[in-house]
């Protein structure tokens, strides 16, 4: 049974190393689980899971592995969705309350399993299926003198599997808010310190250190260390980007506060980069894109921020829709030029990877590697930018 738990964990994406697994076996051999599934749940989680973001996956794996042990039905995402936004409960008369005879727990469980098997859609305010605001013994926000709460958080003493099935840590992943500080920490990794040839100056720290070690006054001269990384930020603003305004604002302010870049520039565009970029968010003051391009070289790192969601002709057509047939450089070509001119380029997309379905997303990814604008995605983008050679264009 333990082995099936191990494979369930791996199947749910919780990577457990053999060492960690052996620690758990060691702890169990010493009796730390106290022969209780509840204690085993806490014990195995503290030894096998090292990121709160994986708690939810662990809960699902635990429920799957030990489902038979306590006979509680797994709660699917779909069922939880039915229980979202509960309808308000209507007032019940005393008679009605009496009618809801209290059942013992075992009967309740069996009936819950039966009903979960029957139920195919959302039910609210009823007396039979799992739903909200009703008098059925199963569901959320309802009234029944004896019942099993499905979804929502409860209190009191519960079995480990029902705790696991509650999926309390579902939101921890999204809870990792990408705040200015987090972005700042990620961007800091972009720096690359290097000593360049130039006028030498007294290295105070090194002189003190050397003098102290030798117990003799030594003066050390060398060129100063400077961060060589230059950053060009290009933001998509307006239209479909409005929902992400706050997120982009944070990225902007983090980049703005970062004082460790040799140089940094920020421009704005709408939809895609065309022949003009804007130096303000309201897009009042424009700068020819060619000039921006001429100002950057292979010491620059380019980051685009946008949802990459536009109609294909806005990206590919050589002449965008308000140019009335006049020939123009297509957006994708501008992106390619930036990517080639800079040392490295990355595109940060505030949208979840699951909805990167647009054909333009695919086209842009062929030119600029795209990352989700999340803590994880930002880290991977920075890793890519640090190690990147100029992007190979297919």
């Amino acid at each position, binding site marked *: 049974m333990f082995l099936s738990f191990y494979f369930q964990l791996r199947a749910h994406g919780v990577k457990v190393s053999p060492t960690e697994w052996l620690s758990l076996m060691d702890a169990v051999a010493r*009796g*730390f689980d106290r022969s209780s599934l509840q204690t085993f749940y806490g014990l195995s989680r503290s030894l096998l899971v090292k990121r*709160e973001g994986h708690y939810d996956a662990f809960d699902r794996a635990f429920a799957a592995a030990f489902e038979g042990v306590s006979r509680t039905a797994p709660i699917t995402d779909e069922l939880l969705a039915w229980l979202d936004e509960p309808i308000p409960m209507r007032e019940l008369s005393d008679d009605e309350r009496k009618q809801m005879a209290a059942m013992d727990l075992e009967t309740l469980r069996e009936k819950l399993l039966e009903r979960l098997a029957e139920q195919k859609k959302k039910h609210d305010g009823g007396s039979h299926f799992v739903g909200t605001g009703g008098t059925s013994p199963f569901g959320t926000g309802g009234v029944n003198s004896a019942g099993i709460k499905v979804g929502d958080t409860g209190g009191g003493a519960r079995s480990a599997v029902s705790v696991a099935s509650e999926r309390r840590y579902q939101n921890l992943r999204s809870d990792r808010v990408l705040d200015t500080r987090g972005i700042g920490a990620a961007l800091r990794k972009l720096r690359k310190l290097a000593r360049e040839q130039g006028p030498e100056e007294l290295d105070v720290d090194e002189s003190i250190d050397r003098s102290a070690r030798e117990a003799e006054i030594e003066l050390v001269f060398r060129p100063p260390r400077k961060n060589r990384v230059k950053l060009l930020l290009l933001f998509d603003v307006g239209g479909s980007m409005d929902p992400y305004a706050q997120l982009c604002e944070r990225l902007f302010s983090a980049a703005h506060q970062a004082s460790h870049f040799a140089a940094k520039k920020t421009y704005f565009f709408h939809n895609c980069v065309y022949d003009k970029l804007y130096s303000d968010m309201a897009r009042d003051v424009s700068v020819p894109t060619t000039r921006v391009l001429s100002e950057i070289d292979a010491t620059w790192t380019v980051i685009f921020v946008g949802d990459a969601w536009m109609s294909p002709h806005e990206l590919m057509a050589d002449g965008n829709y308000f140019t009335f047939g006049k020939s123009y450089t297509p957006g994708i070509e501008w992106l390619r030029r930036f990517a080639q001119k800079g040392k490295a380029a990355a595109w940060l997309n505030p949208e979840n990877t699951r909805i990167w379905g647009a054909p333009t997303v695919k086209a842009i990814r062929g030119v600029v590697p795209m990352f989700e604008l999340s803590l994880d995605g930002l880290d991977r983008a920075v890793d890519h930018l640090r190690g990147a050679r100029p992007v190979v264009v297919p």
Partner: protein
Amino acid sequence: MTTTSAHRVPRWGLAQVARRTAGRHDAAMTTTGFSGTADYLASADLQDAVNVAVALEKPLLLKGEPGTGKTRLAEAVAAQLGLPLIVWNIKSTSKAKDGLYVYDTVARLNDARFGDRDIRDIRQYIKFGPVGRSFVADRRVVLLIDEIDKADLEFPNDLLHELDRMSFAVDETGDVHTAKERPIVIITSNNEKELPDAFLRRCVFHYISFPDEAQMRAIVRVHHPDVDEKLLSTALVRFYWLRKQPDVRKRPSTSEFIDWIAALQKTGVPVEKLAAEIPFVGLLLKKESDVQQLITMKDTTRGLRM
């Protein structure tokens, strides 16, 4: 290691019981392990995590929202077990080696020029850091490495070897110091940086979730035993409502709530007033923008009667 069986006796009771019986005496185990103190309430999961970490001799890594009592746990563990606590507050400039020892070269330079000590004896200029002190201590101690994520990304990796082997060498003298009694290591992190996998694999991990209303009630009772029941209930509703608002950037934490309750109590704010507005909002919201946002929020709990 020169540990004899006599040395093992003062170890934490739980490990002892577990080893001796290798068995299943529930009552004995729950009474000898860490169980929270009078002024620190630990959930059952957290108590288990602490006890397992001690028994398996692994560092305990704690994460959780600010204000959920990560640092205070170490104090509580030390207090309950009657062990000294050594704290290492990590800063962005902290180096792993500084935790082991510092070679006080400046003092040596000073002595070379003006002093009369024998500067050839380097040993007298070696000063142990918090980790070093916890290793050379004569008795078992609790070592708290606070906010490890503040330091450089490679910092945890640099400490791995020493925490694993419980020994370190002083390069300048060639001395090797091995822990006489393995310290209980508690590490906290605020998630500012991802910690390296190799480091995580060696830890016992616990995420302290934000207390729910019932737990919060119990926590408040510890700090303010005589708080008015009605006031507390209303305050709890208001507090959890505020935390749920998506526009609040810095969500108020436990310690802020406790301060707020103290302020409400001291000034004798009537429950009716608390139901109508949030007095002393500055104690809960620390960002100007959050206070501004509050004005525009639709407050569903306003005027609520408990």
